[in-house]
């Protein structure tokens, strides 16, 4: 690799001194004269029919400037990936007729202080007819399960199919030829982003009719585009300001905070701030939902995996958000960095009445890598093979074909294995040390 002058140097962080002196400005540090605070009223049940939302007492509470409800949202659909074809519309910005998850936002109280907004929020009266919720993937896919989605089943439809399929070769043929069939089921349960800074935004309505939106979103233009769609405003009237985020990890790409705050700012004519509480961040922000992956591999006596079948279920929670995209990315990575000629993958994106899932560091690949690598050891142990050697044997090489029918390039798995083996003093046979990602001749 060519040695360069500045690239390759561990220069100190540009924002390093600002960080260590506390001078870095985050969205919570933004303040405007006359700024109001927003607090959200959320659904207390997992599933139900929202019959009535009575905000009269909250509206009348001293210090309250407005209560924002579904009626105030110009285009009450929150389908953040509509711009890349994810649909149909299923999630409202504010719940209108039904409740689909415990914590779903219903209405927002906008007041002089955080304290007043919280007190007034307690006075909102909700009339909800509870319905039996569907709480797991198994319940959602069971025979006779209530269809919680209006298109009739509880999965995202990938071009008419309830799963994303990736296949190459013929797994059944592979299984017939294989010396061993080795199966495994791997489950990664929900966890959370937990950035130290919670989601926060401040929206200022400008005298010229534009909106200035300060947000700790990870994606300024993405937020802007979606805001324009929800507010039914040309998005050149919206300015997103941010760029300094106290930790993201995928949890600040949901555009879940700006729309209602913007509506509150327009309704009151005042700057409005919404800073999520830590409890909201844990209980109401998107998690990464459960993934359960079933592996069935056809393996030869010498350790070569010649067939891999994977069926994977992801609990996307109540709505799309980024899940249809995430499950697709997951599907494309379920075979792993290994050369397997026969692969058949089916990845399901399943809806339940849980907190919606969304992007989290490693989106879709984290569960896949977990399953692949434990399965790899399972195979090694079943065959009495060394876990290193089975990986060197199966590792993909440049020029080989992936399950997504793309030729392998930039492969470096083998080189990282050699480096790690050296670090721990692993004893490997010569052929492992001699292996290269470039050694496949075709």
């Amino acid at each position, binding site marked *: 690799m060519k040695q360069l002058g500045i690239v390759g140097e561990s220069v100190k962080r540009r924002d390093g001194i600002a960080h260590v002196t*506390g001078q870095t400005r985050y969205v919570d540090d933004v303040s405007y004269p006359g700024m109001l605070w927003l607090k959200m009223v959320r659904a207390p049940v997992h599933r139900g029919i929202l019959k009535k939302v009575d905000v009269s007492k909250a509206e009348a509470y001293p210090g309250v400037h407005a209560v924002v409800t579904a009626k105030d949202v110009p285009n009450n659909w929150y389908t953040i990936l509509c711009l890349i074809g994810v649909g149909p519309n299923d999630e409202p910005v504010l719940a209108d007729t039904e409740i689909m998850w415990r914590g779903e936002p219903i209405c927002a109280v906008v007041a002089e202080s955080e304290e007043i907004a919280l007190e007034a929020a307690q006075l909102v009266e909700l009339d909800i007819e509870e319905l039996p919720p569907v709480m797991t993937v198994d319940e959602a896919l069971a025979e006779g399960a209530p269809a919680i989605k209006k298109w009739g089943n509880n999965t995202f439809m990938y071009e008419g199919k309830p799963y994303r399929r990736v296949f190459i070769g013929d797994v059944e043929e592979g299984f017939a030829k294989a010396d061993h069939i080795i199966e495994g089921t791997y489950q990664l349960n929900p966890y959370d982003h937990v950035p130290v800074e919670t989601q926060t935004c401040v929206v200022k309505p400008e005298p010229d009719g534009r909106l200035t939106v300060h947000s700790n979103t990870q994606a300024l233009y993405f937020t802007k585009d979606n805001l324009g769609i929800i507010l039914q405003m040309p998005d050149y009237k919206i300015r997103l300001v941010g760029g300094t985020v106290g930790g993201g990890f995928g949890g600040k790409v949901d555009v879940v905070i700006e729309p209602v705050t913007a509506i509150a700012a327009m309704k009151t004519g005042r700057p409005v701030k919404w800073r999520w509480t830590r409890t909201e961040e844990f209980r109401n922000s998107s998690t990464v939902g459960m993934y359960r992956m079933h592996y069935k591999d056809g393996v030869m006596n010498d350790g070569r995996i010649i067939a891999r079948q994977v069926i994977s279920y992801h609990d996307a929670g109540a709505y799309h958000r980024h899940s249809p995209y995430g499950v697709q990315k997951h599907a494309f990575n379920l075979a792993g960095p290994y050369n397997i000629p026969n692969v058949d993958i089916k990845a399901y994106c399943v809806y339940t009445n849980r907190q919606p899932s969304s992007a989290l560091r490693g989106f879709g690949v984290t569960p896949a890598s977990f399953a692949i690598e434990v399965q790899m050891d399972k195979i090694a142990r079943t065959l009495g093979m060394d876990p290193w050697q089975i990986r060197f044997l199966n590792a993909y090489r440049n020029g080989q074909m992936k399950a997504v029918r793309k030729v392998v390039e930039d492969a470096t798995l083998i080189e990282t294995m050699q480096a790690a083996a050296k670090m721990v003093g692993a004893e490997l046979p010569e052929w492992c040390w001699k292996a290269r990602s470039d050694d496949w001749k075709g």
Partner: protein
Amino acid sequence: MELVTISFKLNGRPVAVVASPLENLRDVLREKLQVLTVKAGCGQGGCGSCTVLMNGEPVVSCLTPIVNAQGQEITTLEGIGTFNNLHPLQQAFYDNFAAQCGYCSSGMITVAKALLDHNPHPSREQIIDALAGNVCRCTGYVPIIQAIEQVTDSK
């Protein structure tokens, strides 16, 4: 609740605020005194990003009623060091890449200052113990511990 006047010393300067007695110190510092180095990470005393020193002892300002600050000496990061007069801890955090998003840095440096004021030569275990109330999601804590150790080594 009736408003009261609370007077205390902030980074050596006498200040006075009018507040409700149970309003928390964090919000008073941020909203009324524009001390923005104190962060609002959780409001539950669980993350340490709001840590300030009260008479040299680290406290979570989000759970400290302002009335408890009456007559006390409060130190925030501004009182520990500034960009043209960095405290050795701040220099060490900078040199060791101990801040990524920076949101936990104020609390970490403040609690480390209190540790070193009490114990100029802490062991690694004592450093780790002192950080028990501070959450970092980005760095994995390692460069933070290294930065603090570097200061104790050079003292």
